[in-house]
Structure formats: C-alpha cells, structure tokens
C-alpha cells in the first residue's frame, strides 16, 4: 500500500460514491450532493496527479533561492477554476431544486413527471 493507492483510491472512491448516490438517491438535494461529491473526487484526483515525489509547493518564498523539486503547479491552478465552477453549478442546481420544491411540493425525484409526452 503506497501513497498512490491512498490518494488515487480515495478520490476515485469519492467519485464512485458520487455516481452511486446520484443514481440511487430519491431526494433531489441528495442527488445534487452526489454530483458535488463526484466533482470533489475529481478535483482531488487532479491534485494528486500533480504530485512529484519529494516535491514541495511551487512557492519560492526565498527567492532567488529556487527549489528544483516542486510539484506541478498547473493542476492546482486548474483545480482552483474547477472548484469555482463546481460551486457555481451546485448553486444553480440548488436554486432550481428550491423552485422545484415550491412548485411540485416535493423533492422526490420520481414525482417529477411533467415531461413525458
């Protein structure tokens, strides 16, 4: 069991759980949380991709003394974007769910059956 199993494994596990919850959840908020979990797992996964053995954070606080061994900064920058996007998505989703609760009077996904014909 090395660190790779831990980092990759836990983030993939989060993604799997997210999909599982989104597939089986009945409550809309639960489903949204499943999607969020999926996003979180993905973000963790991306961060773990950036790791370089023995690397440190890419912040050169003792400039001009520069470390040669740093982790990949790009996935971190990307994840920053991805997190914000995830937040925006969930916020939008929550707004929709709140309105659904108001209109349908329920958050049970199997009661949402307006669009069929």
């Amino acid at each position, binding site marked *: 069991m090395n660190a790779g199993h831990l980092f990759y494994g836990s983030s993939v596990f989060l993604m799997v759980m997210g*999909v599982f919850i*989104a*597939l089986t959840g009945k409550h809309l908020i639960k*489903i949204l949380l499943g999607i969020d979990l999926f996003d979180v797992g993905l973000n963790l996964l991306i961060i773990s991709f950036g790791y370089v053995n023995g690397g440190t954070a890419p912040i050169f606080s003792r400039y001009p003394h520069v470390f040669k061994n740093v982790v990949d900064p790009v996935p971190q920058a990307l994840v920053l974007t991805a997190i914000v996007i995830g937040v925006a998505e969930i916020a939008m989703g929550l707004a929709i769910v709140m309105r659904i609760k108001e209109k349908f009077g329920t958050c049970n*996904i199997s009661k949402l*059956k307006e669009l069929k014909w």
Partner: protein
Amino acid sequence: MTMFYILLVFILTGLLTLFLGPIKVLRNIVALLGYLAGSALFIYNIKPGLIYSLNIRVYNIHFESGFSTVFFGIIILAVFLIFLLASFHEENDGAYYLFAFLTLTGAIGVLFAKDLISFFFLFETMSLFSFLMVLKGKNKNSPKSAFKYLVWSVFGGYAFLFGTFLKVYTTHSVMIGDISFIGGHIKLLILLLILTPFMVKAALMPFHLWAPDAYSDSKDAFTVFFSGGLSKIGIFGYFIALFKIFTEIASKYPWFLTVIAWLGGITATLAGIYAFMQDDAKKLLAYSSISQLGYVAVGFGIYTHYSVVAAFFHALGHAVYESLLFLVVAGVYYRVKTTDLRKMGGLIKKMPLSFIGLLFGIIATSGIPPTIGFPSKWLLYEAVIMKGDLLLTSLVFFASITAFLYSYKLVHSIFLGKLHKEHRDVKEAPLGYATGIILLLIPLFVLGVAPGIAVKHIDYIIRFYLKPELGYNLTTMTTPLGHVNFPVVGIVMVSMFVLSLIIYFIFGSTYKADQTDNYTATEAISDDFELHYAGEFYGFMRKAFGRPLKWSFEKLLNAFLKLFAFIGEIARGFYMGDARVYLFYLVLFFSLLAYLMGGKL
C-alpha cells in the same frame, strides 16, 4: 440559356402576383401576361438539341431539350392556359398564383433537366408547390388529401433520389444516361427506384391512393392542370426511365415490362370500376383519369413502336379530354356550388355549352371516333392483340366498358333528367370556362381526324429507340394488322349517328314535358319530390363489385403505419425516464464502451 429564362419568367410572374396583393384584376392580367411571355419563349425558342449548364460551386445544373421536351412542354403549357382561364373565376389570391406558377416551373423544368439532381430538384419543386396548391384547396378535407399527396410524392421523390445515388455510385455519372451495362441486378433496382415517382405521379396502382382525394379536394381550376398537366410528368418519366436510362430493358428484363403492362391493365380496370361507383363528379373523374393513365402504362409495358406511340398519343388525348371534363365540372360547380351527382340534373338547357363539352369529353374518353380518344385506343388494342396476351387483352377491353358506364353516369346525372328546383335560375358557365371548353374542343376533333400531326412528332421522340413499325401520314395509319383512315371512320360514325337520329325522329314517339315535371304513371306526387335517377346509379354493379373491392391496398399500408407507430412508441420510451435514469444511460454508455475496449486500456 433560354431554358433558364423561361423558368425565371415563370418564377418572377409568380412572385409578382404574390406582391400585387389584393387587386384581383391586376393579378389575373399579370399572371396571363407572364404565362404568355413564358410560353412564347418556349414555343419560339425551344428546339430539340439545346444545351445549357450552370455552375453553382459544388453542383452543375445541366439542361437539355429534346423532342420529348417540346411535346410534353406544349401539352403542359396548353393545359396551364386552360387552368388560368378557369382560375380567373376562382377565389384566388397572390399565393395561389405563386404556387401555381412554381408548380409550372417545376413541371417545365423537369422536361429540361439533363442530370438527375436537377431533375430531382425540379420534380420536388413541382410536388411541393402542387402540395401547397392542394392544401389551399376548397373544402375541409383538402388538408388531409394534401397530406396524403405530400407523403406519396415525397416517397416517390426519395425513391428517385436513392436510385440516383445508386446510379451515380455505380456509373460515376449524374447525367440521365444508360445503365444497361452495369453488372448484376442492381440496375433493375435503380430502374425500379427511378420509376417509382412517375408511377406515383401517373397514379399507377398501387401508387394511386393519393390521387382520388387530391384530385377531388383541390380547387376546381387547379384540378384541370393537376390531372391534365402534371400527370404528364409521370408519362415523361416512364419515357425517361424505360428509354433513356435503361435502354435494353426489353432484352434484359422483359418480365419487368410485362409487370408494368399488367399493372396498367389492372389500374385501367379497377379505377374504371371505382369510377362508376362514385357519387361525386370530381371523384368520378379522378378515377376516370387514373383509369386512362393505366392505358398509358399498358402502352409502355408492351414496348413496341406503335404501342408506345399509342401511349404517347393517349397521354396527349388524356390531357385534352380529362382537362375538358374537369373544366366542365368546374364550370358547373361555379354555378351550382356542388359536385355531388345526386344533387344535380337536367342542366342541359341551362348550360348547353358545358353539356356539349362534357358530351364530347366523354365520347373521347370512351374512344369513339372522330375524337382524339379513338386513334390511341385503336392502336393500343392492336398492340395488345399483337402481343398475344389474352388475359391482358380482355382486361383492357373490359376497362373500356367501364369507361362507357361512368361516362354515361356523369352526363346523365348532371345534364339529363329532371331539373332541380333550386337550379332554375342557373346560367351558362362564365366566359373563362366557356373559352376553355371551346379551346379544348378544337384539338379534340382536329387530332381525332388528323392524328398524324401529333404522331409525326411522337415518332421523332421514339424512333431512335424502337424499330419503326407504324406507317402513318396526316390522316391515316398502317399497322401490321391493318390500315385505318380516320376521316372516313369519323364520317361513318357521324352518319350512323345522324341516321339513328333520323330514325328516332321518324319512328320514336315523344311526349314533351317540362324539365321539372314529375312523370309518374298514375300516382300523384308533389313537385318537390325528387325523381331524378342518380342516387343508386349502378347500384347493382356496386353490389356485384363492392365486396371484393373492400380489401384494399390502403389497409395494408395502414397496418404498416401502425407497426412504425409501435416502434416509435418504443423509441419514445427511452426518453421518458427521470434524471437518474438519464444518468444511468450515461454510466451504462461509459461502461459499455470501456468494456468493448477491454484490454486496450
């Protein structure tokens, strides 16, 4: 270039009439002028052998004119004139003329097309705008009939397109040209596919289902053009498919021709039977039109020189008398506002010119000399007999009998017998109709007496493809079976008629009665009581033929439609889940693809 200009003139005329908006007189005049300009261009400039092509980046439009172009072009333009004359009296608006002129553009353009894609383009134009024309139609059923027509004609068009692509794929040429050299049986498939839209247009059974409804539910003036003019495109298509595209059909697949001949025979007979069972004048005429077009298919199916001449001539005749009949009915409708045969009668004194038109129309339909119907029927019978197919021969002869039956029903129900009370003040059909009737009566007789005028031209069209067997000059024809002189036959016929008339006047006992008189023997009946024999006309025939005809191709088609609907419901079920189900599709899709990739990952 002229060919292109002709089409342009027609399109522009249509657009101009559209924008002239509410002024009816102006619209009519512009339509007539535009038509005249276009036809003048056609008649003076279109000679066989013109070529024109236009490049629009990816596609090249190729135009070419041949003898057949001129022949069919003149027929269609002539019928369109009759349509215009009648439509002056119709309720028309800008869109009406736009659609009509675009239909004409398509119809004339098809005759010019040299490559199959242009052909398809113009053919679809014609179908599309004639569909819109039917959609604008006169009664509640028109949209439904228009729908049927659209589906059928697009079905034909798509079959044609598929055939086109198969042809292009196998021969690497998009031009209308020979496919006989292709190996394998794919050429038969191509031929069949290319022939389909023409069988639809010419209403050959089993592709006729749209025709009765579409003919009877379109505006009366347009029906004249629809039946008389547009069906000619179907005939033109037979010619293109059987002579230009598959030149060696007779030697390679003779049975295919036999099938066409038989389909034609069956169409002629069955449509004839259907015709005399109709109680609506336009429906009756629609079936009669289908029946007559069946003869044309027989002519093409027999595929000898004089049978094809007969087919072409019959197409010409069909244009003349079918237009005439529809025109008369349109005129009658204009005056009495009905086409229901049970509600008319005794109009002979009120509308004498219409009566004469209808009378000679049905005489021509039945193929009696000295009218235009006779030469083609005569040739056709000879061709059938020469072919030696007894069954087909009897079928064709039987079809002629039905023609007598429905013709008589038509003339009797409308013009003879007792006049209805509410029709006492009916006047003769107005000027446009009357002019049309007179204009059509001229070729009806002239070509009946001197068919050589047209036959000469037809001979030019087909002599390149078939060994000339028919001898002809202006007024006579010689076939392997014999010789006929049409003026002589005509004179004999007329003198027989005069003779019988004399006998009738001398020996017949007549009692003069008013048209509204209820001529019963002893019982006293009030004047309101309708005694006109029209309701159960040929009731015994209906009893005889009705039951076997119940089973129809339409039912089979509906069953097919139900099957597709069922499949559609299943497909629709896919889209009926909730969000989780949709997500499940996504996961399933991922898993499936990943599984299929298997070890490669």
